[in-house]
């Protein structure tokens, strides 16, 4: 079974010039995602359309856009559902990140911040095989085991999609705000490290005028995050940790 959908696609020229919407009608499988429809526009109508995609199952974080005005990963956004909300389905690039072309944004500044967070995505089996690795530091440690499968979900679930940046009203008014993803990553990296100095350094990074105190508490990051990372809660947690540190008189 197939469905026919019209997409209203944001287009622009080099450097964000000549901004406009273009309509394209595509026929795709009735289980198609919004990304499948965008890919069909590219494959069958217009090879010049630029959009980012890799994994098609919400794990690489590249494909983030606005679908009908709301941040989403189109690779897991159901096309029929999007059509029910609005026809034609409107697709646009993320907000609060510089436009690179069509549905593509420049993520350099975002990755600068994620890099500074030093968070890694490593994890290891609970009952590991002894593997010869020529002595290299694998940096992987067994996971703390709690009951149930919640233990399988950790901050490393952040796919660095930038959706929380786009959804954040503070980001729109202060481009030096570290932003929900980096602040959440700092909190996670702090849980991971055993080094007390590194823990202090990470907490320092979350502090300051453009750090956790700048957040207005709109909670949009947590609402839109496709991976249930809950950046807003980790911002609030770090505020509590910073207050506690101040109370202990450790602030310089």
């Amino acid at each position: 079974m197939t469905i026919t959908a019209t997409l209203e696609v944001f287009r622009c020229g080099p450097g964000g010039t000549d901004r406009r919407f273009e309509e394209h009608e595509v026929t795709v499988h009735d289980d198609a995602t919004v990304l499948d429809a965008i890919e069909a526009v590219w494959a069958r109508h217009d090879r010049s359309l630029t959009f980012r995609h890799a994994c098609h199952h919400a794990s690489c974080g590249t494909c983030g856009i606005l679908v009908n005005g709301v941040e989403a990963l189109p690779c897991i956004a159901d096309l029929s559902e999007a059509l029910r909300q609005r026809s034609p389905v409107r697709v646009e690039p993320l907000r609060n990140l510089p436009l690179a072309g069509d549905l593509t944004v420049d993520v350099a500044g975002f990755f600068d911040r994620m890099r500074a967070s030093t968070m890694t995505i490593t994890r290891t089996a609970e009952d590991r095989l002894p593997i010869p690795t020529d002595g290299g530091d694998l940096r992987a440690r067994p996971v703390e085991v709690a009951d149930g499968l919640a233990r399988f979900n950790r901050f490393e679930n952040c796919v660095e999609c930038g959706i929380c940046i786009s959804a954040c009203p503070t980001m729109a008014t202060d481009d030096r705000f570290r932003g929900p993803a980096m602040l959440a990553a700092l909190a996670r990296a702090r849980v991971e490290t055993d080094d007390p100095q590194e823990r202090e350094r990470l907490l320092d990074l979350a502090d300051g005028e453009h750090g956790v105190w700048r957040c207005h508490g709109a909670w949009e990051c947590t609402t839109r995050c496709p991976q249930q990372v809950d950046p807003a809660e980790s911002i609030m947690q770090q505020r509590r940790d910073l207050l506690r540190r101040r109370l202990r008189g450790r602030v310089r």
Partner: protein
Amino acid sequence: MGRPRVIVIGAGSTGAATAHDLALRGVDVVVVERGEVASGTTGRNHCLLHSGGRYCVTDDEAGIECIDENLALRRIMPDLLELNDGLFVATTEEDLAYKDAFLEACARCHIPARELEPDRARQLEPFLTPDVLAAVQVPDGVFEPYRFCLAFLATAQANGAQVRTFTEVVDLDSTNGYVTGVTVVDRLTGRTDTLGADLVINAGGPWAEHLASMAEVDVPVSPTPGVMVTMGRRLNNMVINRLNVPSDGDIVVPQRTTSIIGTTSWSVDDPDHIPIPADHVTRMLDRGRDLLPEIAAASIRGVMAVARPLISKPGVDARLVSRTFECFDHKADGVEGFVTISGGKTTTARAMAEKVADIVCGKLGVDAPCRTTDIPLVDHRRFHARS
């Protein structure tokens, strides 16, 4: 004379690892990729860091290649791997009969393996079927294909390589039987450019045949897609495999918040358009449930399909074609300065890169050994970051 310049077409795992290897050897590398990094086959694969267990019984060569590369990747990208191990699980008498051959093959291919009591396996994996009759633990793991490629490319960049995404090769330029470069269209600006090179490497995955046809040569790459179904919950810690010969729906790879069931195998002509057959999805769910019954209660998060760039062998079923790789120096077809690398897996990308870089360096007179087994890759985020 300056450093020789090589253009690598494709920023999937093969192109990314190749760029890194050549840049380390002092070659001036330019990578051109028509879309985002890993937007071809690599990005959409199963994310399995193979231990070799899936191949060792029928294909020693592929089994050994996998475990060797698995260990090398643990050294060079420790931050990017989930070292979860894998379980090969028997649920039928037929599976059970396969166990001895499996353990022997693991030993033959030096794949560390240990048998777990079914109760212990169930304790480690609470959602594993109660029908488990035997379980063998092997060092499978999980990578994230996009970041896998970014780490290789970021390291290549740190060693001087240029990476141009959204840059599509529309022609290969040649004079007198020598490929001299490529004609590209920059999709962000619409500009057409020609880029000169001493040699061009075709790492175009399932598009390799199309790219080779631009130089009027043929490579026996057959696009062989597979369907994967991603569940909305993570249901396993280790990679769960059926303890038997590879077949449809016999593996569930856990990744972040999801579990991915795979995979089928069929043939297509055009890897740009892979319509997903509905019955493949149902088959994945049915077979996946045999291993993890809880799949029945979970929602589907995504369904995807991509084509393996398998090196086809006339008259051999795609499932049985070796998963190893091949490098084609098109000098043999009367075209100089053009080499194709294809086949293999993301797990073996580093080894593929070593092979093609050895050949390319030999042709260009670059006398530098491969150093990629030991040098740790830089943070994948450096690919996009400015600092």
